[in-house]
């Protein structure tokens, strides 16, 4: 037995050292399966693509790859030879990175005519297609402020007031896209030379920075499931609606409110990844993603507004949500030029 193992080992060693290995290419035949790359928060209703498969014969496999930033980076690093065919979930704060990487094939969906023209502002070349929009805003725990007899903050300026010391939790703009949106809101509000001072004061006022939105909202925030210590948080304008929808026991009154002058407008896009072998099918998928059926699924599964104006917005969604009138915004090319330098500066201010 010993001799046998020795010989077997020797044989493997010799074979390996003289080295020969061959890889066979797998051939792709049969019906086409599209890979839809998406971030972790892409959670449509189960079976939503069955109708698409029935109509076109094309199957859809969802491949999730981390948060929005991570998803985009991996796709950007592999531009031209993508790991999927269609990408869901690059927003206006990250759009410039996608353009720099030249990772998308332009396409004009048949559904563009159903969309508000303002959604096309950033994408004259139709590199990507808008799929949903919403706002990142300061949310607050209504009960906490009632109990403590304090009025909730309505503006960004209010957050550096001593009244709100140690009450705010924000996701890091480096690792979180709502975190980045909130950071950009402060840049839009206080200017490229003013936000540094604002964040210095925010830090002095005890802001808590955590990795991601989920940790901020569901763990540290007092107004949601985690019942944390902090009654002010960065979240979405649609978060109160989500709280009502998932309330157990059911409720008619939203437990959280939105500070209307703190919002940053977010538009999310999908695009066909350059280098896909299934371009025609990918175009069909973009059409499906922007069509009424899929768009009507968005509000209650992902708490965003549909871009297709024919889509049905459920009453349970629209009743608890109002869009801020003039959300803050920054042109995507300005973001592109400054993002890395801003975030470095932000880190050295906040984590000094």
């Amino acid at each position, binding site marked *: 037995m010993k001799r046998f193992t020795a010989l077997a080992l020797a044989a493997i*060693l010799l074979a390996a050292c003289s080295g020969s290995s061959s890889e066979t290419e797998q051939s792709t035949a049969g019906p086409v399966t599209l890979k839809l790359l998406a971030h972790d928060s892409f959670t449509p209703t189960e079976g939503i693509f069955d109708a698409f498969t029935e109509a076109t014969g094309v199957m859809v496999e969802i491949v999730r790859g981390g948060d929005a930033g991570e998803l985009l980076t991996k796709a950007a690093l*592999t531009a031209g030879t993508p790991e999927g065919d269609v990408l869901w979930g690059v927003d206006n704060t990250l759009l410039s990175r996608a353009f720099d990487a030249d990772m998308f094939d332009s396409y004009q969906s048949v559904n563009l005519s159903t969309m508000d023209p303002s959604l096309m502002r950033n994408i004259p070349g139709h590199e990507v297609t808008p799929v949903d929009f919403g706002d990142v805003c300061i949310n607050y725990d209504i009960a906490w402020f009632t109990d403590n007899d304090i009025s909730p903050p309505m503006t960004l300026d209010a957050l550096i007031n001593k009244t709100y010391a140690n009450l705010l939790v924000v996701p890091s703009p*480096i690792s979180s896209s709502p975190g980045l949106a909130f950071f950009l809101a402060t840049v839009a509000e206080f200017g490229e030379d003013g936000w540094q001072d604002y964040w210095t004061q925010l830090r002095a006022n005890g802001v808590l920075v*955590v990795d991601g939105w*989920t940790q901020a*909202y569901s763990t540290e925030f007092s107004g949601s499931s985690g019942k944390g210590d902090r009654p002010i948080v960065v979240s979405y304008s649609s978060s109160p609606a989500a709280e009502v929808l998932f309330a157990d026991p059911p409720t008619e009154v939203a437990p959280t409110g939105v500070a209307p002058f703190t919002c940053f407008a977010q538009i999310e896009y999908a695009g066909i990844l350059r280098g896909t072998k299934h371009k025609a099918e990918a175009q069909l998928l973009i059409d499906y993603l922007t069509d009424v059926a899929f768009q009507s699924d968005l509000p209650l599964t992902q708490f965003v507004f549909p871009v297709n104006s024919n889509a049905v917005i459920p009453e349970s969604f629209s009743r608890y949500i109002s869009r801020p009138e003039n959300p803050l915004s920054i042109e995507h090319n300005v973001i592109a030029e400054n993002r890395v330098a801003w975030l470095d500066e932000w880190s050295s201010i906040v984590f000094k």
Partner: protein
Amino acid sequence: MLVSPYPKTSHWLLVVPALFLAVFLALPFGVIVYRGASIDAFVDSITNSNLQRVAWFTFWQTVISTVLTVVFALPVTYIVSRFRFRGRNALLALITAPFLLPTVVVGTSLLALLPQQLHYTAISIIAAHVLFNVAVVVRVVMPSWAHISPELAYAAHTLGASTFRTFRTITFPLIRPALGFATTAVALFCFTSFGAVRILGGPAFSTLETEIYFRAVQLGDLDGAVAISLIQTLFLAIVLYAWMRWTRTSSTLAVVHSHAASPSRTSHWVAIIIVGFASATAVIAPLIAVAYRSATGWSQVWSRSTASSLFVSVRYAIISAIIATLIGTCIALAVAYSTTSTRVIELITSLPLMISAVTIGLGVLITFDTSPYAFRSAWWITPIAHSLIAIPLVVRIVLPLVQTIPQSLRDAAATLGSRPRVQWLTVDLPLMRRGIATALALSAAVSIGEFGATSFLTRQSNETLPVTIARLLSRPGESQHAQAYALATLFFVFSIGAVFIAEVTRNKRNITS
């Protein structure tokens, strides 16, 4: 050794390893340098106040972690080196287990143990580093310390030296080479720490290694990431060069004869009980904490996705262990049988130590992206990346074994008429077998725990266990965390068990032989 025992083979033994390292290590690193390195990026990085902050943290946490590790490890090393006592094997297994754990799991267990106020602080990171690295010092220093004859200490005592003076003038000089080696290794591990910092650092604490990842993956600042990884590589190269110079001059112990004895005095017993109890607690406490917090997670651990990551991890471990052991053994044999200078080869084998795991992952991702070389999404690229990290370990395990094979045995075989091939099969191979088994086991452990390179190469469909644990922890909700804790508990128990069995069988073998 001036005459090569197998003169014909020593050169072609290097062909496959050289090709392998060139394609999967040198090429990706070259592409990174080519794509990202520029004077501007370097200047930007060095003058960037945020990166200065990260570099400073990396440096001071390395110093503190290393010092604390040595301080905690020396008393433990003392009792396991000097004394034989009941429970010694169990204690050694307990202490060694954290080192075999994925750093992600060590981080997770501290998250479970430490109070909320210490989460995402420097203290938690340093605690993880100490817990992880104590084993390195104990294991490396123990043979030297056990080798010291107690008569030396008795003589010193007779001449009136205090216990401390005896340690300073006799024990310390004798263990210094081993201690120096262990300290350097610990410092390197702390400096390039990734998994523990990803879990415990939160948004505020970053080492250079995690900063490379954040830059590349979250910021999309490839130039910046490359600049940092080149600076880090340069720094590690200097450290490793110094280390190699230094270890060459210090001789290693050829024959280890243990002078460990049964404790004879009450003070010995007190030392053994206090130190043994304290160090066992330090390992068991995190285990109990993760086990406690995992209570509600077990029902979901066997869900499809978690079970599949277990399967993926095991498969990768087997494949990368085989690749690493084959390539590493080829290199070790080539070095041992070669008559020419081995410095070049030594440099090649230490390359994977200088080029960090994160850099390897990043390099592979951007290098093998063009058809027909689009390997980056092939499943086998991850085990290959793992094997790159394990190869230096394999070489360092197998090489000393081959070098100590007495030429007289081969000569005897030749005198009796066996040809070189038979000679090799009957003399060299049987004597290497235990080393190869150790190399296989260790490289499998490296693969199971690897997180840095895997972070770049992982896909939803083939997540490894550390990636799954990190993902579960990064999401909110008790049930997700409980699942992560349950996986960490599994790792912990399995690791302690494996080390204990290895310890017991080795001692049995030592007794019988």
